[in-house]
C-alpha cells in the first residue's frame, strides 16, 4: 500500500539591514525589522493563514486520512511570536488534529553541521524544546537545513536518536533506482531510515505548477494523481517535499494552487491502495530497501543539489568561516544576547544572498534577496560581524578573559595552547551547567 508523504518547510530568516561601515562600533541594531515584518505579514496573509486553513479543512473533511508534516525553523517561530501570533495559533490548531507531524531541524536554519558539530547539536536540541513547547510532540524525524545531507550527518543524527532523516533524492546517487522506497545510510547504526524527496513530482507542484511553457500545463489534481498511481507496484512512499510558501506565495492563489490542493487528497484516496502518512509513520511502516551512499554533501538547492548555493564563492566562505572562528569566544561571553545574535548570523539565508551563481540571470537567488547585489549582502554581513566581534572582545576583556581569536587561517602560536585548554575546561563546565540555551 503506497503512501504519500507531504513535508513542508516553513522558514523566515532575520534579514540584516543595510548596516554600513560607519555603524560598526556605533549600533548593535543589525536587523531590518521593518522589512522582516513586512515580508512576514505578506507571506502570512498570502500563504500561511490560507494554506493552514485549507490543510485544517482537508484533515477534517477526510477524517484523519489526510496527513502532513512541517519543519518550522526557530527564527520563523520567533517572528510569528513577534509579529503574527495568529499564524502560530493556526499551526497549533493543526498540531492538535493529531494528523500533523513536526520535524526536527536546527533552530537557526543554519549550516552549523558543516563547521561545528557541537553547535549543531545545541541548535537541534533548542529546536526540539521549542517544538515540544508549542506543538506538544517530540520530533523523531530529522530534516537538516535545505535538506543538506551526507553519510556523516546520518551517523550523527542516528546517534542523537532520531528514527528517520529527510533528504534529497539525488539522481546521481540513486543511479537509476527509485526514490519511492526507504533507504538506509551506509555508515552508522542502520536503524534510521532515509526518506528521499521525489524531486520530479515535488517540483511539478513547487516550480512548474504555473509554468505556461510546460507541456503538462495546466496541472490538475486528476492528472497528478494518475502520475502518483503509476508508482503502484514499484514504490512504497512518494515523498513530496517543498517550501510551504509554494502555496500562495511562490504560486499565487490566482494560479489555482489552492484548488489543486483542495482536490488532491480526494483524488489520491479514490485509489484504495494509496494513503497519506507522516514521515514517522512511513519509517515505521516500511523497511529500508537499499543503501544510499552520500559521500559529499547534497541538498535540494539549485540544479547542482550541493552546497554551492551557500558556500561556493570566496565571500560566502570567508563570512562563514569568520562566524565560526569566534564560536569559543562567544560561548565564553556567557551573554544571552550575544549568543543569540551570533546564532542568527548562522542562518543559511545570509550566505544564500551572497551567492553569485546565475546572479545575472535574475534567478531565484535574486528573487529572494533583500539586497541589491551579493556584494552588498557580503559587505553588510561583514560589517555586522565586525561589530559583533568588537562586542565579544569587549565583554571578554571586562571579564578578564584573554581573547582566544580562534583564527584558523593563522595557525596557533604555542602560547595559546594553554588558553585553549582553559577554554575547553570552561566550555565543559558551561555544558554541564546547561548555560547556553
Amino acid at each position, binding site marked *: 500500500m503506497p503512501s504519500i508523504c507531504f513535508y513542508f518547510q516553513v522558514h523566515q530568516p532575520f534579514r540584516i539591514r543595510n548596516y554600513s*561601515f*560607519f555603524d560598526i*562600533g556605533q549600533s548593535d541594531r543589525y536587523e531590518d525589522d521593518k522589512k522582516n515584518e513586512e515580508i512576514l505579514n505578506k507571506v502570512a496573509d498570502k500563504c500561511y493563514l490560507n494554506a493552514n486553513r485549507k490543510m485544517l479543512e482537508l484533515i477534517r473533511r477526510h477524517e484523519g486520512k489526510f496527513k502532513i508534516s512541517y519543519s518550522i525553523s526557530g527564527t520563523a517561530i520567533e517572528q510569528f511570536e513577534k509579529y503574527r501570533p495568529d499564524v502560530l495559533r493556526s499551526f497549533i490548531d493543526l498540531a492538535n488534529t493529531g494528523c500533523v507531524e513536526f520535524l526536527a531541524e536546527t533552530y537557526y536554519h543554519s549550516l552549523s553541521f558543516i563547521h561545528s558539530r557541537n553547535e549543531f547539536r545545541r541548535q537541534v536540541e533548542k529546536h526540539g524544546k521549542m517544538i515540544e513547547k508549542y506543538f506538544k510532540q517530540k520530533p523523531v524525524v530529522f530534516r537538516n537545513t535545505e535538506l543538506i545531507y551526507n553519510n556523516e550527518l546520518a551517523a550523527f543524527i542516528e546517534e542523537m536518536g532520531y528514527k528517520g532523516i529527510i533528504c534529497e533524492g539525488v539522481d546521481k546517487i540513486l543511479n537509476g533506482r527509485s526514490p519511492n522506497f526507504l533507504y538506509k545510510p551506509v555508515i552508522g547504526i542502520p536503524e534510521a531510515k532515509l526518506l528521499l524527496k521525489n524531486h520530479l513530482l515535488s517540483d511539478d507542484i513547487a516550480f512548474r505548477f504555473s509554468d505556461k511553457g510546460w507541456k503538462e500545463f495546466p496541472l490538475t489534481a486528476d492528472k497528478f494523481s494518475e502520475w502518483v498511481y503509476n508508482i503502484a507496484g514499484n514504490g512504497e512512499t512518494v515523498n513530496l517535499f517543498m517550501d510551504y510558501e509554494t502555496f500562495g506565495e511562490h504560486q499565487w492563489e490566482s494560479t489555482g494552487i489552492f484548488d489543486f490542493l483542495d482536490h488532491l487528497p480526494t483524488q489520491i484516496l479514490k485509489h484504495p491502495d494509496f494513503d497519506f502518512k507522516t514521515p514517522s509513520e512511513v519509517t515505521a511502516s516500511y523497511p529500508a530497501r537499499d543503501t544510499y551512499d552520500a559521500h559529499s554533501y547534497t541538498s535540494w538547492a539549485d540544479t547542482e543539489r550541493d552546497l554551492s548555493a551557500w558556500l561556493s*564563492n570566496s*565571500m560566502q566562505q570567508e563570512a562563514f568561516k569568520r562566524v565560526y572562528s569566534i564560536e569559543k569566544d562567544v560561548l565564553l561571553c556567557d551573554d544571552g544576547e550575544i549568543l543569540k545574535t551570533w546564532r542568527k548570523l548562522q542562518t543559511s539565508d545570509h550566505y544564500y544572498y551572497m551567492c553569485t551563481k546565475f546572479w545575472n540571470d535574475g534567478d531565484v537567488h535574486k528573487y529572494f534577496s533583500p539586497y*541589491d547585489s551579493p556584494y552588498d549582502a557580503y*559587505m553588510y554581513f*561583514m560589517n555586522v*560581524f565586525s561589530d559583533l566581534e568588537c562586542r565579544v572582545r569587549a565583554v571578554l576583556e571586562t571579564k578578564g578573559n584573554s581573547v582566544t*581569536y580562534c583564527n584558523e587561517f593563522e595557525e596557533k602560536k604555542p602560547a595559546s595552547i594553554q588558553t585553549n585548554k582553559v577554554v575547553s575546561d570552561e566550555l565543559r563546565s558551561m555544558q554541564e551547567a546547561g548555560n547556553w540555551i
Partner: protein
Amino acid sequence: MRRDLPKVLMLGWEFPPIINGGLGVACHDLSSAMSDLADITMVVPKSSLGFKVKSVNLVGINNIDSSVFGDRATDQKLPFSLHSVPSDLNPYHSGSYLYSTKKKTDEGKSRHFDIDNLYGGDVIKKVMQYADITTSLASTMNFDVIHAHDWMTMLAGIKIKEKTGKPLVMHIHSLEVDRSGPENKGWVYDLEKKGMEYADMLMPVSNFTANNIYQYYGIEKDKMKVIHNGSNVVKSFKTKSPFKEKTVLFVGRLTRQKGPEKFLDIASRVLEKNPDVRFVMAGVGDYFRSILEKSSYKHIGNRFHLTGFLNLEKLRYLFSFSDVYCMPSVSEPFGLSAVEAAQFGIPCVISKQSGVAEVLNGALKFDFWDIDKAADCILNLLRDPALKKKVVGDAYQNLDNITWGISAKKIMYAYSSGQFI
C-alpha cells in the same frame, strides 16, 4: 570687468557643484585663487545659476541661448583629423559601476548638449559641441590668454586659438596614459597629443606628469611649466576611533590608476605581521567587486572594509580617526587626498609614482610595485610613535608651500615669461 588685470579665458569641464573626481575641485580652487591676479572667465558645460565663485565670471553653457551666435559651425574643419566612433565610453571611469542602477538613456541621439552626464553617451560629440559653443562665445569676448584644463576642453582651446590668435595654455591634471595605462592609445590620447603639440605652453601639475608628457607624447620639456596643485586649508579635527585596532585609510576611485589591488596586497602583508589593524577603502569604481572578492579570498574580510561612495562629511570623519594614509597609485599626476590626510595630521605612505611625492617631503614613499616596502612603512608608523611624529611634523611644514595662492602666482609668472600678458 577690472580693466587693469590680465584677462584669462578658462575652459573647464567639471566644476562644482558638479564634481566628478578632483578636477572640478582643482579648477574651482585655482580659478578662485587666480582671481586676485587676473580677470577670470571660466566657461564650463554646466553651472547652476545660483552658484557663484568670488571674482570669477562663471559661465555655464547650459545657461546660454546659443541661438545668439547664429548658425553653429558644426562642420567646421579641425586643424587635424580625428577618427571618432560614437560610443558610450567613459574615459575617466572605465568598466561597469557597481552602484549605477539607473538605466542608461539613449544619449547619443539627443540633439541638445547633454549636461547631465559629462562623460556618458557620445563623449566626443559633447567635446565638439562644447568647442563650437565656446568658440562662438569667445568671439564676443576680450581676453589675453586661453587656459584649457585637460583633454575635454582641448578642442575648444584649439578652435579659439585658430579663430582669435590668442596664446593657448593647456593645464594638464591627468593624462590618458595615467588613466588607462601607457599601452592604451585611443582617440583621447590622439586628442591630447595633437592638442599639446598645438598649445603654446603646457602646465602639468607635477614633474611626474611632465615626464609622462615627454616620454609618452614626445613633447619637449622647454614648453612646460610645472604648476603643482595647492590645497585649501581644511579645519582638521580628531575623533575617537570606533575600533580598538589601528586604521589604515585609502581614499580614491577604485580604478587601475589608483592601485586598489596594491592596497589589498599591502593590507594582507601588514596583517600577517600585525592582526590588529583595519584597512578602510573609501570610494567606488570598476574594481569594487573584484577588490571585495579578493579581500574575502585572502581571508581578511574582517579587517578590510569597503565603504562605497562617501560624502565630504563622512570622508573627514574617516580622516579624523585614521592612523595611516596609504596612496598606492600606479600613476598619479598629483594626489590631493594625501595633502588632506597630512592636514589631519595623518602620516602618509605614498607611491613615488605621484606628483604629491614631489612636494610632500614628510611622507614615506615606495614604488607602487614594492608591496613589502609599503607594508614595512605602515608597520613602522603604527609601532613607532617617534617616527610618526617626525613624518607628521615634516608634512605640516610642507603644507605651507602647498597652497593655491602659490600656484596662482606661478601661473601668472609663466604667462609673463611666455609674453602672453
